[in-house]
């Protein structure tokens, strides 16, 4: 079972978390998008077989939503960090 490091609680079994999908931020001004651009935001995914930045929620723990960088083929978690530190 994958070990995920919650930025707040430390190493925990992945069964304590809920996967939030690859990072895709909501457009700042949705009304500026064409319907195709909006459909792409809603539905299209990179779905890489590589390192991917994604959301996780420590729902059985401290309730923190945070980001993780994980290699999707090996499940190796490179790092996890709070959303606030995404540009750090």
């Amino acid at each position, binding site marked *: 079972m994958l070990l995920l490091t919650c930025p*707040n*609680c430390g190493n*925990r*079994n992945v*069964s*304590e978390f809920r996967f939030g999908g690859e990072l895709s931020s909501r457009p700042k001004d949705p009304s500026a998008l064409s319907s195709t651009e909006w459909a792409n935001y809603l539905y299209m995914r990179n779905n890489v077989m590589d390192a991917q930045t994604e959301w996780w929620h420590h*729902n*059985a*723990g*401290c*309730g*923190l939503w945070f980001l993780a960088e994980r290699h999707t083929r090996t499940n190796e978690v490179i790092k996890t960090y709070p959303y606030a530190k995404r540009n750090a």
Partner: protein
Amino acid sequence: MSTSKTPIKLTPLHSITQRLGVTFTEEQGWRIPEVYTTEEDEITAARERVVLADETPNGKLLLEGDHAESVLMDALDLDPLQVNEGRDGIYCLRNDLFFITTPPGREVRAQKKLTTVSAASEQFVTVTEVTHGRAEIRVIGPASQELLSKVCGLDFHPAAFPNETAKQSSLAKTTQLIIRRDIGELPAFSIIGTQSLGVYVWDTLIEAGREFGVVPIGRAALAELIKG
């Protein structure tokens, strides 16, 4: 125009303890079990095996906010260290969220103090009393770690889970706050989670603890244990 019956607070485990034909008592407005079998047997079970105690009446507050720590310090005029070490029932769940537990009844005063201080601080801090929302089951005794390691994936070895620490994790497939607060030499863990799951968690712990001879204990035995 109030009715004749004065309001009495019941814990979520009240119905299953009632079925065991237990003698009840009242403390701080709560009806709680005084004793299940005999005080001596319950104390022996706690000292030699493992017991469960319904401590739902303990007061519970949540303090939320980026500046919760500073408000907490001002309110309880403590120096910062103690706040993070979980002394005197204050546990840091997240840098913006503190859990404060008080003996039954003392939560009202604590909430007032915190509310007035946070208002004065002009910081945006929210104080919420959640005593009614949580069931609190305390697992006490030498076999408590082994019992809990049948239903929870955390490492309960003393080095990994020392006294006076709080961890939020999955227990019996439900979200629980687990606080280790030993009673003298006896390891003791408070399992605090949403009250509608109280009966389910209690029944699951009783079933998992059968091999260790787990029994419930009432107020009398618990008080005696705490006196030491």
